[in-house]
């Protein structure tokens, strides 16, 4: 396939401009992950206008507003997102420096137990940052901007907010740490993320014209629900409230969730036996979010089994909240659709209809 545009034109209307204060749900399954789609959202908001030759306005400048992105990821670290975005031509490290992007790391220290001070020097000795202890690799592909690339400065984050405060100021990455239980623990996380968002909002750059729109991407926050459980006093309602709190801070929110059969259907009204709480809470969270969403993008495997030239099926539907919008403006009008997609080896994505 000849070089694909980073944003396939069939996909562009769905990812380019999420409506204000909207919630977009991206659901995925084990064999059809959502990372490529999240990257497309990032690209649509942060992509370089000169690099795109498509007819869509993906310049990030819309009505004089500059789009900024805060990515909160619970299952993947900074390295993954940085290198994958690079394949799309998106330099997240540079964008972080330009204060157009911020990464919130929900993987590294979320459940880490090393909050005792005695272990901090040890770990900081071991990971002094800046890649001084690299893996031995044969770097095959050249890195275009090696000098400008700022490695995150991983500081061990204490259970209190103060340590993370320092972490945020010294490095581009905020690391979340879950401590305590119940709503209070969630509130602490929410506060950290909101602080990152506000910091981006407040940063005015020379070329900034007017206000900026913050697009918040919360990747796999359902892990938080699954891994904490009822014993920590966190249920679907609390998680839903948590997302809602984050929504209030951002211009538009994109949340990814898992919609695997065992997680959704074991607990549905059509199941026959009483499901365990993990499934019940997950299903309630996922379905509840879908009720609140404007756009629902569902990824799943091909029903007919895996194929070599198809990665999966993408179905875009209007969520329940879509009906609350008064009159869809021209740019917001889009139709529900089901397409196939294929993630190529080079990271490009081919999106096409069935039979095309």
């Amino acid at each position, binding site marked *: 396939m000849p070089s694909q545009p980073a944003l396939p034109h069939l996909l562009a209307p769905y990812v380019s401009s999420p409506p204000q204060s909207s919630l977009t749900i991206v659901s995925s399954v084990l064999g059809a992950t959502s990372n490529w789609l999240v990257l497309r959202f990032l690209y649509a908001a942060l992509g370089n206008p000169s690099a795109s030759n498509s007819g869509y306005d993906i310049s990030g400048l819309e009505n004089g507003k500059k789009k900024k992105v805060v990515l909160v990821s619970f299952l993947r670290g900074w390295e993954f997102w940085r290198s994958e975005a690079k394949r799309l031509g998106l330099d997240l490290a540079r964008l972080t420096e330009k204060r157009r992007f911020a990464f919130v790391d929900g993987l590294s220290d979320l459940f880490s137990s090393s909050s005792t001070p005695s272990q901090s020097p040890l770990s900081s000795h071991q990971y002094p940052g800046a890649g001084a202890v690299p893996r031995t690799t044969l770097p095959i592909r050249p890195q275009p901007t090696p000098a400008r690339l700022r490695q995150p400065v991983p500081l061990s984050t204490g259970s209190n907010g103060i340590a993370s405060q320092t972490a945020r100021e010294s490095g581009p990455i905020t690391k979340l740490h879950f401590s305590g239980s119940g709503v209070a623990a969630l509130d602490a996380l929410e506060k950290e993320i909101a602080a990152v968002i506000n910091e981006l909002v407040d940063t005015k750059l020379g070329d900034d014209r007017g206000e900026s729109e913050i697009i918040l991407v919360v990747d796999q926050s359902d892990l938080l629900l699954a891994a904490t459980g009822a014993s920590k006093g966190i249920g679907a309602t609390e998680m839903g409230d948590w997302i809602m709190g984050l929504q209030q801070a951002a211009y538009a929110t994109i949340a990814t969730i898992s919609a695997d059969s065992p997680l959704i259907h074991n607990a549905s009204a059509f199941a026959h036996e009483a499901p365990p709480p993990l499934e019940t809470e997950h299903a309630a969270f996922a379905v509840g979010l879908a009720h609140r969403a404007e756009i629902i993008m569902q990824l799943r495997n091909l029903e007919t089994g895996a194929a070599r030239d198809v990665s999966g099926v993408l179905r875009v539907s209007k969520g329940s909240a879509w009906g609350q919008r008064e009159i869809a403006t021209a740019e917001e009008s889009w139709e529900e659709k089901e397409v196939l997609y*294929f993630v190529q080896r080079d990271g490009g994505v081919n999106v096409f209809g069935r039979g095309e």
Partner: protein
Amino acid sequence: MSFRKRNVGLTTGADRTSVPNISTPPQAATQSAPPTPGVRPSPDDGRPTTSTGSPSLDNLLAGHGGLPVGKMLLLEENGTTDFAGALLRYYAAEGVVQDQKVHVVGMQEQWGRSLPGLIGPAENANEKSDRRKSERMKIAWRYERLGEFGAGVAGARAPAAGSGGQAPSTDGGQATQPAFCHAFDLTKRLTHPSIGNMTYIPIRPSNEPLLVSIQKKLEAAIASSPPNTVHRIVIPSFLNPTVYPPEVSQPENVLPFLHSLRALLSRPASRITAIITLPLSLFPRSSGLVRWMELISDGVIELCPFPHSADALSTSGAATSHEEPPQGMLKTHRLPVLHERGGGSDQNIGQDWAFTLSRRKFEIKPFSLPPAEGDKEAQDSTRSDKMPKKADLEF
């Protein structure tokens, strides 16, 4: 996860000389990081990979020719057989042979003593050496191409290409291309100087939640070893109630543990791989907990052994009578890196796999049902019937 930048590679070279653990002598002055034994760049995208100790599992992993460093594999097995355990032993033995640090969770030293004995590098140990060799050639060729590619773009990378592609012919002596994967004999016991280096993290009651203390011990063990060490984390029969107390299988215990394990693996400076085996008979895939464990893992492979494989299936699935019959089906639900990127684009996708465990290897082959499957006698009888009938018709 990505490979290192050029300029950083230089500093490492200096660093590494001080590390006593590495046997490779520092090569000519400016060179990029010398290869660590047992780690090689993936032919797919150059990320470092390490062998699982069984070549055919290496080949299954989405074109990387091994388990990418920093990735976690979940091996699930149906029934009460222990094929996954055999794979795990290959994996651990390979780590021992490659001087990597192997951490075994939940088992005693006993487990380490039952590792399979070393035969030699996987390539020449195999009886079907010619076929192996052709695969080997393919890898070498890929190497070379990548080397040239690197040299073409950045001149400083030429030595790296040399160490990859031409080293075997020029260096001679000690530096013949170090074997990436070895062959082992399950009936023998591994004796290797570094076998004592394995660390065991047994299940002991403590005042902390069990998995939290395991996590802490793992992190401490990894932190206390020299920074360039490659680690392997081996978790046999995870959550098995004969090993683990029942409260461990609560989601709020298991999932944070796996999540922090994932965090540990994906730290930029760490060089760790992990394989976990899970008995599916106790924890079925249809449960939400197992699905979450799979979602946290980078790769998910399910083994479905055939029920008492003895005679019924003796010839089914084997292409010729010389090949050993498969002992079960193997399903790949998720492969490292590939599915993280969105899936697809792998030539092995959609293939049905069968596995055969023999004394010397765990082999994974495409599975195909022979026409006579399960009804061999009937077919034989019809065939024998047919001949006289045809003869009758002649008259």
